[in-house]
């Protein structure tokens, strides 16, 4: 007999094998996911979940696909949460402090409770990246928020109503576009191609017979 544990989906008890994740345990119990299930490998944030272990007070947040079931786990999926994304034109905005004040003024209402950080399924220092955003330190905000998958557990727990993942996206786009150093070799290559610098060479290689291509490929020099 497999090692089984009791878990409670929306309060209803199921006995499931102990080595399953919350996601596969629900499937074992007979559920078919529509919402609340995405990449199943911890990259998309679709399966934000809250749970409590019976007899313990602490409310925990997790990704259903990355979390193994435990005895006495009371589980609720958060298939959707109304986060508040503001729209902007990336070509028009500038990387200065005012942009956060304009688009996400509620970040200045942060009360420092740190519930966001405690709830982060990626173990990010969420409150810290919001603090960087408040100060207009976009590069630091971008770095600190980089591994965010947008599950929204922070937003669910925030008393100030901040939509943290959207703040992180804005900081990263500002950093990627305006703050990070420009790439000269990239701009040069695009220009060379646009000027037709490779047109003839590419046509030549396209016309080569397969045997010649095999010869070229099998003997090509590989950069160390």
């Amino acid at each position, binding site marked *: 007999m497999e090692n089984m544990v009791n878990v409670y989906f929306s309060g209803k008890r199921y006995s499931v094998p102990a080595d399953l994740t919350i996601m*596969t345990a629900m*499937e074992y*119990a*007979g*559920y*078919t*996911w*529509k*919402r609340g299930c*995405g*990449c*199943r*490998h*911890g*990259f*998309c944030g*679709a399966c934000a979940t809250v749970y409590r272990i019976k007899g313990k007070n602490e409310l925990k947040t997790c990704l259903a696909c*990355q*979390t*193994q079931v435990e005895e006495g786990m009371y589980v609720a999926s958060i298939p959707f949460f109304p986060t508040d*994304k503001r*729209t*902007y*034109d*990336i070509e028009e905005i500038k990387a200065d402090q005012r942009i956060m004040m304009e688009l996400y003024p509620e970040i200045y209402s942060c009360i420092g409770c740190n519930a966001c950080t405690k709830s982060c399924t990626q*173990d990010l220092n969420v409150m810290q990246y919001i603090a960087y955003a408040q100060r207009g330190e976009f590069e630091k905000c*971008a770095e600190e928020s*980089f*591994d965010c*998958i*947008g599950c929204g557990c922070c937003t669910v727990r925030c008393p100030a109503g901040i939509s943290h993942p959207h703040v992180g*996206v804005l900081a*990263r*786009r*500002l*950093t*990627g*576009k305006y703050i*990070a*150093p420009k*790439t*000269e*070799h*990239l701009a040069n*290559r*695009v220009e060379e*191609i*646009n000027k037709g610098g*490779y047109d003839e*060479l*590419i046509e030549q*290689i*396209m016309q080569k017979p397969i045997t010649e*291509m*095999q010869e070229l*490929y*099998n003997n*090509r020099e*590989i*950069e160390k």
Partner: protein
Amino acid sequence: MYTPYPENMMESIKKVEATRAERMSTEPRRLTADEKDALLKEFHPDYNPDAFAEIKVGPNKGQKAPLELAEMLHSTSRIADENIDITKIDYDVDVLVIGGGGAGSSCAIEAHNAGADVMIVTKLRIGDANTMMAEGGIQAADKENDSPVQHYLDCFGGGHFAARPELVKRLVMEAPDAIKWLNELGVMFDKDADGRMVTTHGGGTSRKRMHACKDYSGAEIMRTLRDEVLNRQIPVVEFTSAVEIIKDEKGQAAGAVLLNMETGDYSVARAKTVVIATGGAGRMHYQGFPTSNHYGATADGLVLGYRAGVPLLYQDSIQYHPTGVAHPVQIQGALVTEKVRSVGAQLVNANGEAYIHPLETRDVNASGVIRECREGRGVEAPSGQQGVWLDTPMIELIGGEGTIEKRIPAMFRMYMNYGIDMRKVPILIYPTLHYQNGGLEIDGEGFTKTIPNLLAAGEAAGGIHGRNRLMGNSLLDVIVFGRNAGKKAAAKAKEVELGTMNLDHVAGYAEELKAADIASGEVSPKLLPQYARHER
């Protein structure tokens, strides 16, 4: 002593550790062309004749496809018994994009740029796609020692000389501009202090042209594209699948029948041009393999397009990523990015031997892992799954302490969730179903071969990668061909005059199945894998 694995695995690790110093100083030999061919023929799953069936109807009749895909092509339309009034139009647009991943989103942005009235429908949420899960990077020949011609050679040769030249040309020639476009949208590529891209090798590359955003490359790209789609307020209808293409009497595409995944209600979209950007097929679990793909990867677009008369290309060619998780069981089949090898980890068998060069192409390395396991040089995990080692502690020895957390944080996090510190111990891997090399056949401009205003882009399209795709050419493909499809679809929409909408081709296909005496008993497209266990 640190012992995160059971005893048999720890015993094998002793052998891995014993040979590490010597392995560090020698690079395993690259295989010759003949050696690669022999390895593939004997061990690659595409050569398993029992796993394929003949397609009995439609444009590819007589050719083979994986059993599970053939079954979907031989199944009944979901709307066969539905009474749907297609004259009642719920959405009326210039460009209908089916799929909200990297290709669909890039397509929608470019179509919007071109002034078209564009809409995305997607089965799950925008961004629920394999693009989001791509870890390692994106190729582009933008460094001084590299060129699009060199990229062409790597792509064409790595795909066994089967790719369509006009598609490879577009892929490599538009690659630098794709990176520039993403960078200007705000994607944070790994750069040095002077702005030079930090680039590495992938399997089968002859130049270091793999651009990355740590090991969240696809996620960083996808969340930026999603943000841009939302900023532009392009309509995105989520949890809605296209289940059939609608055509007109001129043989053009005219829209699609849509299914609300939650309510089960149908609706109708009319469009002057339609783009199929529905992604891959990993959740079909060909040959019983686990998969690295997202929940919705069920080959829907192939079925839709095929029933509408679009031929498939290389539908029998599947990519198994050599390094899927073999242990722990909770994340079995999850992708361990090729970047782990790019930054120094070797593939090592149970005896501690680096039996192959870690950066051979994916099909070759996958076959190598299967060979080692089948011939008794694998390691058995508690689940019974065999695997070989990926010697991750080498990464810190080569790149210095902290390299793993800096360059592959997602991998580090995924394993630490289960108490496995890959800085200290190697990880056990086995091939996982990763990518459909084939798909709907398109011409050099991105249009399907048979329907003048129907396009396909991204993993749903075939021919760009031949019979094996290189790491970093798929993220590239979704951007290049997604953008191209958006521009072309917007332009084409200006000249299309739609006739009367009909679903005659669906009825016609059903007749063909009947005439061939085929009844699979299933409906298609599949939409979602069936994972729910029912007790009775």
